[in-house]
């Protein structure tokens, strides 16, 4: 028996990654990028100085209310700046605020930045959903002594939701919405305007849903990062201070254009479909790693086009939306929902997208991440679905090890 090469056997060997299809141009995305860059929402301080109603904080799922009241949330800009000035802000948080070092960076950085800007900012009010992660919630209490007026929205904490109490809970949230409107602008929300906002939002949600669906054929034409940029125009998690990039007609036209492009772009067949679940936006570096490994994230639980009910009054619709968000575990910890419910939700996504594996992401030093990731990991492992758990600091670039682990995971699924 000689050691001769057996070519046929060699060809049955697995190879770690396939070949990427050549990149395709997307006029729709180019238009979107131009629109996002031109959108002037960054200058909210000036807007506040000129009399616009601008507040810090946001309420997951109630962005249409803000739009209907013409209120701008500065939180997105604050988060971006907190990343830019992270080192200083964290230092301030740990020294001036005595916030324990083991607290997550996003909370420390925001706290520090608030303190650093307390004398120069025009934005003096902060709205806090008290069902938000405890760190953000208690941190907002510290802001009261930084010259900010802090307003809290009361949460319900539904776990094993009792449907017979839905009406009661909806009425509670309706009251909270009215109370919030009064605090924000001194009067109740105009329901006609709110209804129109919900309708637009649903139109956009359906189109975004279609885009996400079409991405299953070819996830490279509109990448994950592009999807988040898209969401930045309309989605609660990203869009608290944007308003469809100030031009909703154009924004919707871009969505339509993208849908048409995606319907006609050739199918890509050789990629590893993956789900991404959990907090922490998947930063550019990690997106790139996924691309290089010929993976594609075809589903995630941060950007989900859930619809607002249009068969009830708009304020009730907002109330129902918040409640359902919590019951179904959507909206991460920002909506104060149930993470065990999220697992079922992800399972549905898995079936819908045929993803081969789940990337569970989370922020370093985040207790929600800590317990939810462990739970989801065990949950999927039991079903023999490959899971990788990644914890990253939102304010720091991911390390080579982290990137390598992710790549190896995708190679494993190829």
């Amino acid at each position: 028996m000689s050691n001769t090469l057996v070519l046929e056997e060699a060809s049955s060997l697995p190879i770690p990654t396939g070949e990427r299809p050549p990149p395709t141009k997307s006029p729709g995305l180019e238009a979107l990028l131009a629109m996002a860059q031109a959108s002037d929402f960054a200058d909210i301080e000036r807007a506040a100085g000129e009399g616009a109603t601008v507040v810090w904080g946001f309420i997951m799922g109630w962005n249409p209310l803000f739009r209907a009241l013409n209120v701008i949330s500065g939180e997105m800009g604050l988060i971006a700046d907190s990343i830019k000035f992270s080192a200083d802000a964290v230092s301030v948080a740990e020294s001036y605020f005595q916030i324990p070092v083991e607290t997550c960076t996003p909370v420390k950085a925001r706290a520090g930045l608030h303190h650093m800007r307390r004398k120069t900012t025009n934005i003096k009010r902060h709205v806090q959903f008290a069902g938000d992660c405890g760190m953000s919630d208690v941190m907002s209490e510290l802001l009261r002594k930084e010259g900010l007026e802090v307003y809290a929205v009361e949460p319900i904490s539904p776990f094993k939701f009792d449907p017979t109490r839905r009406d009661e809970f909806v009425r509670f949230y309706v009251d909270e919405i009215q109370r919030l409107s009064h605090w924000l602008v001194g009067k109740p929300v105009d329901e006609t305007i709110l209804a129109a906002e919900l309708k637009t939002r649903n139109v956009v949600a359906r189109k975004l849903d279609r885009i996400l669906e079409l991405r299953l054929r070819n996830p490279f034409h509109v990448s994950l990062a592009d999807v988040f940029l898209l969401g930045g125009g309309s989605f609660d998690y990203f869009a608290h201070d944007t308003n469809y990039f100030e031009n909703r007609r154009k924004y919707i036209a871009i969505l339509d254009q993208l849908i048409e492009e995606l319907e006609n772009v050739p199918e890509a067949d050789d990629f590893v479909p993956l789900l991404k679940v959990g907090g922490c936006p998947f930063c550019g570096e990690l997106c790139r790693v996924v691309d290089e490994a010929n993976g594609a994230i075809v589903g995630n639980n941060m950007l989900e086009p859930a619809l607002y009910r249009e068969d009830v009054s708009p304020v009730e619709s907002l109330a129902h939306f918040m409640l359902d968000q919590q019951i179904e575990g959507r909206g991460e910890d920002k909506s104060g929902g149930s993470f065990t419910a999220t697992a079922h939700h992800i399972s549905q996504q898995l079936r819908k997208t045929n993803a081969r594996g789940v990337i569970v992401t989370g922020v370093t030093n985040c207790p929600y991440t800590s317990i939810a990731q462990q739970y989801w990991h065990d949950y999927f492992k039991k079903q023999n679905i490959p899971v990788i758990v990644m914890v990253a600091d939102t304010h720091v670039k991911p390390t080579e090890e982290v990137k390598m682990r992710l790549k190896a995971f995708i190679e494993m699924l190829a």
Partner: protein
Amino acid sequence: MKISEIIGERTWKFGPEQPTLGLDLGSRASKGVLLHRDQIYAVQIPTGYYMQETADELLAKLTEKAGLNRSDIVFIVGTGYGRITLKYDDIAYKVVTEITCHAMGSHALYPNARTIIDIGGQDSKAIKIDPTTGKVIEFVMNDKCAAGTGRFLEKAAQLLDLDLHDLGDFSLKATAPSPISSQCVVFAESEMISLRARGQREKDNNSLANIAAGIHYSSARRVKNLLGRVGIESDLVFSGGVSNNPGMWKVLEDVLEAKFAPPTKLDMIFAGALGAAVFAGRYSVSAGQRHKASHTHAAAAHGEPVLQA
């Protein structure tokens, strides 16, 4: 050399028709393996400041050993710690993670391998592989913490005034391994220092060996925890720089209550580069097939080169 000198009379199905290269660029040592039919060549050099230069040096040394020219190499796969930002205008090139490469390299050398424990200078990994394909089934890594990695042993060697590669031999002389309880290298250091001081005070000639052994046991316990997450199934393969440490070998077999597959003539430090070379072979085959296919369809859609450097 001929592959039969390493694996004996077993069929070798990992030798490509055209020569391919696997480069494993580590933080300290860089390894290269050249595969061509039933030939295998392996070279190791210290990693220089510039990755590209190190890689080029490996390429040059390997082609020289094999009596080949650079232009004979059809595909290179790079792997290793850190971003492999190599550039080859004239040779097709791809990057594959060291986990996947290690698995394949181990599989090539040990066809029945199911569990690999790889302990390097910076991290430790446990990898489960499918013995029919060499594919990774599951893996866990410890990359946050020095305990259980080569760095821990290095620190210990420093404190005991020993050469790292003597540390293992020294530990084999232990009569009663000192219990080092700390989970963390930083605290273990203090423990080691006090143990050493006590040994000197009590004029215990064997204390250094016992401390050395204690460190090995402490390390091995961490490794055992890591392995516990994927489960130990034989054949069990020990790879990575630390696998050259005879002390660690013995202690691990003791703590894991399992035996490692015996070493082959090819040092396991080349496992990653070997796996990379195997993948390079595979890529060159599939690229060749696709190249043929795209030429068949004359109206090529892209007009772009199929192989991407």
